[in-house]
């Protein structure tokens, strides 16, 4: 773009935004509407209504679960998109003839040993982040990324390109859809129990079930997220 046009664009964005944000309620003001309306209810009644100490998890998996459902599909769509754009035009052929760190990237034996040694601990940490998401920071996405990083490392050590993938392709396709599947199961169970899609039973004697449903969602999100990150990595690397 030409320089004057850039300047005009930037000014057209910056000036109204600065004037607009200057008149917003001061950040941190406890009497601002952002704290007194819906948020106050989440903080005050969240534990009773959802059983989650971590209110962010309460919002993500209970109050606004439909957003989270959309979000897991966005990242699935990203994987589908990357595969659709990058997969070879002829069956069996590689789309790629460019130099780069392709499948043949050598891994030093020391690194491979360290990856194998630490893998169980990383997996444990990822699982911890997923399962503790409703009482401490973390949850499906964060744990899923940790597991995804682990899968990427393992695919460097154990997998060898398209011929020997880490997981069989049909299994991988199902696991990539783990999060939407978990939402389907939990959503329909909620429909049967409460009469609303993605509802949770509120009766005190069913708290265990409610917790199980939330953990199912988190595990589904974690597995699906990890598989999708592995898929994105492999596609970008050119496997």
């Amino acid at each position, binding site marked *: 773009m030409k320089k004057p046009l850039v300047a005009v664009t930037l000014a057209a964005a910056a000036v109204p935004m600065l004037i607009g944000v200057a008149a917003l309620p001061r950040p941190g003001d406890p009497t601002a509407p952002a704290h007194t309306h819906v948020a106050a209810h989440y903080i005050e009644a969240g534990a009773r209504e959802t059983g989650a100490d971590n209110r*962010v998890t309460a919002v993500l998996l209970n109050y606004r679960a439909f957003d989270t459902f959309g979000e897991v599909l966005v990242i699935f769509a990203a994987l589908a998109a990357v595969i659709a754009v990058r997969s070879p035009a002829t069956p069996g052929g590689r789309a790629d003839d*460019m130099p780069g760190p392709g499948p043949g990237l050598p891994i030093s034996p020391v690194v491979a040993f360290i990856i194998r040694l630490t893998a169980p601990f990383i997996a444990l940490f990822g699982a911890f982040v997923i399962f503790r998401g409703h009482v401490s*920071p973390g949850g499906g996405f*964060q744990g899923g*990324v940790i597991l995804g990083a682990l899968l990427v490392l393992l695919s460097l050590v154990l997998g060898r390109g398209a011929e020997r993938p880490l997981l069989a392709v049909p299994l991988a396709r199902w696991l990539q859809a783990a999060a939407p599947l978990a939402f389907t199961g939990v959503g329909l169970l909620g429909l049967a129990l409460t009469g609303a899609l993605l509802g949770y039973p509120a009766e005190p004697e069913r708290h265990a079930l409610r917790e199980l449903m939330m953990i199912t969602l988190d595990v589904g999100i974690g597995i699906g997220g990890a598989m999708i990150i592995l898929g994105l*990595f492999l596609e970008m690397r050119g496997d």
Partner: protein
Amino acid sequence: MSQAFDLVMLALLIAMALAVARSKDLLAAAIIFSGYSLVMCLLWQHRGAPDVAMTEAAIGAGVTTILVLLAIGRTRRREK
């Protein structure tokens, strides 16, 4: 104290964003962007948003940077 910490963080963020804008070396720009994301994490952690900080550290600073590095590896490193 807290105010001063925030101001330093904000100044650092702007400096890093400008560095990304100016750098001709895409690899350097990607690494600086990763650092920018990490500073953002610290800021959010400080503002009572550990969940967001954790997500940004894992996804914004981690996954995004790795994907950008892979893409640079398959294309070219210098900006014209």
